[in-house]
């Protein structure tokens, strides 16, 4: 026994180093462009356009101050946050019961319905941009947060149903049956017993809903003009008559990365399983 634990260590040791090199290179590849964005955001425009420097020589926070003190800039962040949260609430609320139905019961047309839902995840936003614009304009929702939240529900709801169904399949059916025998009604069982059991699945789903709503621009830009304009669209403002304000553009970019980084930090222990959509 001592032999068998000893031998792999000897042979594994060099391979771990090999892996470390591979991971090091890969992470370097991922971080280098982000590092460059960060450096740019701390430079003055004179330094950016002047001599080429690998790091900021006179660090300045002016670019960030411009964004954080100008209402037309920071409302962009608030707008994005608002519709992302609205979208998460709407998507989870409708997807939870549906995912339960798909994971527990078979009924007429269930497989076709499931695929039809998924097809909406495959719908190119470019196809929907113009019809959405007309639809929401005609019902007076143009340039509101709810319009963007509903538009993003097009691809987020199917995704939520898909992920949640995977997690719910993993919960043994006996739990449902025991609860019904104990006299729980369906709504009470669902809220009190079942939802806590799939809490990690809900967390993972919320993460994905956040992700796909936060990163999307085509629809959110098409459906808004002033009041609900997302930060990503505000960024195009940096292109002015005097050229592009690179420093502010980079600072705005850095600030859009932060919320995502924060969310990742909170769900770091579920990321791997989460990305597999509960299917491993």
């Amino acid at each position, binding site marked *: 026994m001592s032999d068998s634990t000893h031998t792999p260590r000897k042979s594994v040791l060099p391979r771990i180093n090999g892996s470390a090199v591979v991971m090091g290179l890969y992470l370097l590849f991922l971080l280098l462009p982000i590092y460059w964005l960060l450096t740019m955001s701390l430079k003055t425009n004179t330094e950016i356009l002047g001599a080429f420097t690998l790091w900021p020589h006179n660090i300045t926070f002016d670019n960030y101050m411009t964004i954080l003190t100008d209402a037309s800039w920071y409302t962009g962040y608030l707008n994005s946050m608002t519709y992302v949260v609205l979208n998460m609430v709407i998507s989870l609320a409708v997807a939870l019961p549906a995912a339960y139905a798909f994971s527990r019961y078979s009924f007429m047309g269930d497989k076709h319905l499931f695929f039809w839902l998924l097809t*909406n995840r495959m719908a190119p936003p470019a196809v929907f941009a113009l019809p959405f614009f007309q639809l929401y304009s005609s019902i007076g929702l143009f340039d509101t947060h709810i319009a963007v939240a509903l538009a993003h529900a097009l691809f987020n709801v199917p995704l939520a149903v898909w992920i949640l169904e995977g997690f719910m399949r993993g919960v043994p059916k006996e739990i449902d049956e025991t609860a019904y025998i104990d006299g729980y009604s369906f709504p009470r069982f669902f809220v009190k017993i079942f939802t806590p059991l799939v809490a990690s699945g809900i967390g993972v789903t919320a993460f994905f809903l956040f992700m796909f709503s936060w990163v999307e621009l085509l629809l959110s830009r098409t459906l808004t003009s002033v009041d609900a304009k997302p930060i990503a669209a505000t960024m195009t403002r940096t292109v002015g008559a005097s050229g592009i304000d690179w420093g502010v553009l980079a600072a705005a970019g850095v600030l859009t990365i932060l919320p995502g980084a924060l969310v990742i930090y909170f769900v770091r222990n579920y990321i791997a399983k989460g990305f597999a959509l509960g299917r491993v």
Partner: protein
Amino acid sequence: MNKTVNQKAWFLILPVLVLVAFSAVIPLMTVVNYSVQDTFGNNQFFWAGLEWFETMLASDRMWDALGRQIAFSTIILMIEIPLGIFVALNMPKKGFWASFCLVLMSLPLLIPWNVVGTIWQIFGRVDIGLLGYTLNAIGIDYNYTQDFYAAWITVIVMDVWHWTSLVALLAYAGLQSIPDAYYQAAKIDQAGRWKVFRFIELPKIMGVLMIAILLRFMDSFMIYTEPFVVTGGGPGNSTTFLSIDLVKMALGQFDLGPAAAFSIMYYLVILLVSYVFYTVMTNLDKRDGH
């Protein structure tokens, strides 16, 4: 799991149906409507039949965009899937470094798509970008705004940067779920590294890998924002993919009829390919006894 037959389950699905019908069926019907009509302004529409479809099918513009799109999706799948698996195999299995890698790798996935474009624009520019400046400094003529190959390479490397982590994370999750007993059995059989991968790891991660391929195919086939920010579809039309072309046609030139016909054919192609992947995926699921 054995499912009970229960038609009342439809009631649980109802909210999703109403919502998706509102945000998918109505707009889609609008598109269908436009695709068979012609207008001379003033909101007057005339029945045009399949005319727009015929026009689009005969136009080089759509076929060229489709060709570029297929080339792009194929290339990024051929790079991202093997690279993602390779990275996943080299990731630390547990402990601090595993979390460390997971957090950093997920970072590109949560950056808004236009910011991804901005990052690469800033990174690749010849005058102010680290990449562009360095390449030119060592004597490689690289300028993604003017050179066809440089533009393509930039867009592809950007997509690899953006999405390889997704494939890696999926493959990693699959690898984590393989019980130790499999590896012990392989050791008893004295299987080499390649054989372990080929006969244990690969079959076990096939399920999640199909999800990865499905997601990557769909999303790369709809790609719009990132190349639009970096190259704007140029130089010339060389990086004008289907979505870029479609938005140009529908929102830029307001050619509703052709754009709608284009939309429908575009959507059908995605549906068809996705259906094939989906069928393969559910069959794999069944075989594994999920």
